[in-house]
């Protein structure tokens, strides 16, 4: 792999950039792999990367029906945080956070992980109770965070309306300094380049049309480019997980919903932190290009169209202008939608399935991007060993039979 560095850049510049290598190959599918990952988004590519790099499984294919990193990885609002309420999710997201902190160096690809901090605002007494509960739990779980009062919030974000005459005055917030944002596309590309360098075949424009299952054990997949064999198949297909599950002959406790986001025109830097609010329901950060990156809510109906309904955008911008009245004359440039696979308890599924050798990693809802490294890492470990990694254990799909749900709605109430 061609190493990237400032010096290298200068060298290439002097040779007119004519000698840059491909960041990943465009291989033709082999007949057989040890592990097939279905889904070439961030999570799938990360899984393949760690399989090859950390767990010595190098004969791996990532099968992507479109172009890699083209799903939610390319459509999210790039927020990374680990201040989750319940132990199970806190451990999972903090595992991811620790990997984020060394990711650019590990991948030799700058994913621009920028720990500018995340504020979760509280506007009601119950909001504040929930915030205190979460921050206390985070602290005892070794996750950074503190509870701020309205003054503390105002000090961090001077342009926000923290006055008492707001409809829902800001009473305080939880503040996780280590949280922040990352460059979403770079994450997919960095993992793809890394995985490819370790010998992983990334098969784009390749669509899985069915599974090859014999007496309850998977042994391959049908694709539009022919059959490919593998005794271990991991599906990391986000919004399309239910469609794949159907091919495996079972249902998942999932609904795929449109999740919308939007950006303003680029404006001069004015907002350094990420601000999120459940109560007025909006969240916002500013990218390095200057766009205000704004997340809208989930649309309540099932949708695979990567489009949502307009009122969701209206309500979100109302929330933003309520929090930041000075943005009223800023202009919205672009809006788009992703397909988020949501679980009833707002927690993911990282699990074995009724089919032996077939694993699913899905149900991340609105929280997938921030978990990318951790999700990939624990899923890779599970696929490599054939046994679920301890961190993944609680996220079995069968918790919906036993009732052992991990209800993060409180913490995940707002789309992010």
């Amino acid at each position, binding site marked *: 792999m061609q190493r990237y560095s400032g010096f290298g850049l200068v060298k290439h510049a002097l040779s007119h950039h004519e000698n840059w290598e491909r960041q990943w190959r465009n291989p033709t599918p082999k007949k057989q792999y040890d592990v097939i990952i279905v889904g070439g988004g961030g999570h799938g590519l990360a899984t393949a990367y760690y399989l090859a790099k950390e767990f010595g499984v190098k004969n791996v294919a990532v099968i992507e029906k479109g172009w890699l990193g083209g799903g939610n990885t390319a459509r999210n609002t790039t927020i990374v945080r680990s201040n989750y309420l319940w132990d199970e999710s806190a451990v999972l997201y903090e595992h991811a956070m620790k990997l984020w902190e060394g990711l650019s160096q590990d991948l030799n690809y700058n994913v621009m992980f920028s720990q500018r901090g995340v504020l979760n605002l509280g506007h009601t007494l119950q909001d504040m109770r929930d915030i205190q509960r979460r921050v206390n739990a985070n602290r005892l779980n070794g996750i950074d965070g503190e509870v701020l009062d309205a003054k503390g919030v105002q000090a961090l974000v001077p342009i926000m309306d923290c006055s008492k005459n707001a409809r829902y005055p800001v009473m305080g917030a939880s503040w996780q300094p280590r949280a922040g944002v990352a460059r979403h596309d770079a994450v997919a590309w960095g993992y793809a380049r890394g995985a490819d360098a370790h010998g992983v075949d990334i098969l784009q424009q390749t669509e899985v049309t069915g599974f090859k299952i014999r007496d309850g054990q998977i042994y391959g997949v049908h694709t539009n480019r022919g059959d490919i064999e593998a005794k271990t198949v991991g599906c990391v297909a986000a919004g399309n997980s239910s469609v794949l599950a159907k091919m495996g002959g079972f*249902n998942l*406790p999932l609904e795929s919903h449109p999740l919308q986001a939007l950006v303003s025109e680029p404006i001069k830097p004015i907002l350094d932190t990420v601000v999120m609010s459940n109560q007025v329901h909006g969240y916002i950060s500013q990218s390095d290009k200057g766009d205000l990156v704004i997340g809208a809510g989930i649309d309540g109906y*099932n*949708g695979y*169209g990567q489009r949502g309904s307009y009122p969701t955008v209206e309500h979100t911008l109302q929330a933003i202008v309520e929090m930041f009245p000075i943005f009223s004359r800023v202009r919205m440039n672009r809006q788009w939608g992703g397909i988020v696979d949501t679980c009833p308890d707002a927690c993911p599924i990282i699990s074995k399935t009724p089919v032996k050798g077939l694993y699913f990693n899905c149900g991340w809802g609105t929280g997938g991007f921030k978990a990318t490294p951790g999700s990939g890492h624990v899923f890779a470990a599970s696929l490599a060993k054939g046994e679920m990694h301890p961190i993944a254990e609680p996220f079995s799909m069968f918790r*919906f*039979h036993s*009732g052992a749900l991990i209800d993060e709605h409180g913490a995940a109430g707002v789309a992010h």
Partner: protein
Amino acid sequence: MFYIYCPYCGEHREEEEFHPKGQAHIERPKEPEACSDEEWGNYLFFRDNPRGVHHEMWVHAVGCRKFFNMTRHTVSYEILETYKMGEQPSITADSQAKPREAAAVSQQEGVRA
């Protein structure tokens, strides 16, 4: 944004008047006590979530407050039909070809201010 024909109000209304209520035709087991944990979990949580023709329940929350069913394509978002609670869909993933047009016409082209 959807334009939804309410089978009880007998006219198209804006999506903002409605709430989606998830997959349609999910019946509560008659004998819950006889269900295994697995069966009960499937009833509570497991869903079809198809990419394509989907039968879902909606409620005309800001309107007649009636629940009803809708057959909708989850990619094109085209509403193929709406029908009252207790009725069965005339359009399904399989039997889609012909009636689809007809229904689509009544739902879409027929829109008149």
